[in-house]
């Protein structure tokens, strides 16, 4: 044995860890906005779009849900350049995260849209609203309220999954941890501290989303 834990390096590393955490939060913020927007389009398209589009969305969802995120990331970052599409690591990471998250949230948003009674649409149409107004102003807000808890979980899951993008050298929390442990030779302590930072981030993010959702979407969001 004779191994003793040493956290002496921590004081000098706080700045690096904070920078990594900020990058992780930035990634998940962009992904959340882009992914939610994409999944609203996807869910609407899967319900009301032309048949080929419905089929395409269905295939997209199944492919993304049945393959690992890491492979999707490698495919986008290493595979796409052979087709002439070269992305820098951060862009590739955001793209992979957004596409992955959308595959899950399309189903969630779709379930929310189904949960809004048909009468709501009929009433809005009877009042003379145009179909797009009906969707944006009547159906969507009610659907989002229903699915908000599921959406929150998905965002937190995606944040945890984003640790993987360190593998294409995006300088987020895990990447900084890798660099740090290579410098300090304190692998276990470094990863332990960073794991705790992730735990704090996921608990904080969940609380923030639930609190924010209650304010924006009104009561009844849990």
């Amino acid at each position, binding site marked *: 044995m004779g191994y003793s834990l040493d956290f002496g390096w921590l004081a000098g590393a706080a700045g690096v860890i904070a920078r990594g955490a900020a990058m992780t939060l930035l990634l998940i913020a962009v992904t959340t906005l882009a992914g939610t927007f994409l999944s609203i389009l996807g869910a609407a398209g899967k319900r009301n779009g032309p048949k080929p589009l419905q089929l395409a969305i269905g295939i997209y969802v*199944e492919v993304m849900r049945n393959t690992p*995120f890491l492979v999707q990331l490698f*495919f986008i970052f290493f595979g796409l350049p052979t087709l002439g599409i070269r992305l820098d690591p951060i862009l590739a990471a955001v793209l992979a995260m957004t596409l992955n998250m959308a595959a899950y949230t399309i189903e969630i948003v779709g379930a929310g849209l189904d949960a809004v009674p048909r009468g709501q649409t009929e009433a809005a149409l009877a009042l003379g609203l145009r179909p797009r107004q009906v969707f944006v102003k009547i159906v969507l807000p009610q659907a989002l309220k229903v699915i908000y808890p599921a959406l929150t979980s998905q965002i937190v899951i995606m944040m945890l999954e984003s640790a993987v993008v360190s593998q294409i050298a995006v300088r987020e929390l*895990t990447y900084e941890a890798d660099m740090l442990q290579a410098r300090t030779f304190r692998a276990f302590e470094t990863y332990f501290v960073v794991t705790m930072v992730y735990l704090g981030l996921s608990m904080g993010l969940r609380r923030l989303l639930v609190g924010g959702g209650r304010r924006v979407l009104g009561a009844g969001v849990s």
Partner: protein
Amino acid sequence: MIEFTFWDIVRNLLLAARWTVLLSLAAFIGGALVGLVVLFFRIAKNSWVKRIASGYIALFQGTPLLMQLFLMFFGLPMLGLRIEPWTAAALGLTFFASAYLAEIWRSGVDALPRGQWDAGASLGLHYLQELRLIILPQAFAITRAPTVGFLVQLIKSTALTSIIGFEELVRTSNAINNATFEPFKVYGLVALIFFVMCFPLTQYARRLEQRAGAR
């Protein structure tokens, strides 16, 4: 430079996929066993025991699996065990799976009406008999769909063990890609192999869900 034909790539990937399957099975079985223990703690009457189990579950569900694997990989040697990617991968995924499975089954136990416990008690069964004969069979039955769903997630999660050096599908594909410089083809094939493993299970889970919904 070694020449790789298309079939060489496919054959090597399929050989590596054996390890992905084996690791998934080991983690699922190990996770089910440990998860059962966590479940017992989680539904115990003692509030402290319950709290420990909740903390365990929250810890694994609130941190990235990649970090858990790193901690296994670098933490095990401190306990005097040798670093072995297979050990770290199998143990890491086992604990990861145990937390999720315990939580899934707990939802099944909670969904059962109180009367099931009361009926068991009135028949003179003690706590463990009640669990074994009445509660757990029903809890497992109603959570079969999410359990299969989690198995899909577990299979996909084995990809992360490539990062700590376990020689499974993704790590092999990285090596092949470094030799052939055909990432589009190689990673496309890897995705296809994962899809072939996961899609039938996803469909099975969906059918179970529909059958449960129809009842």
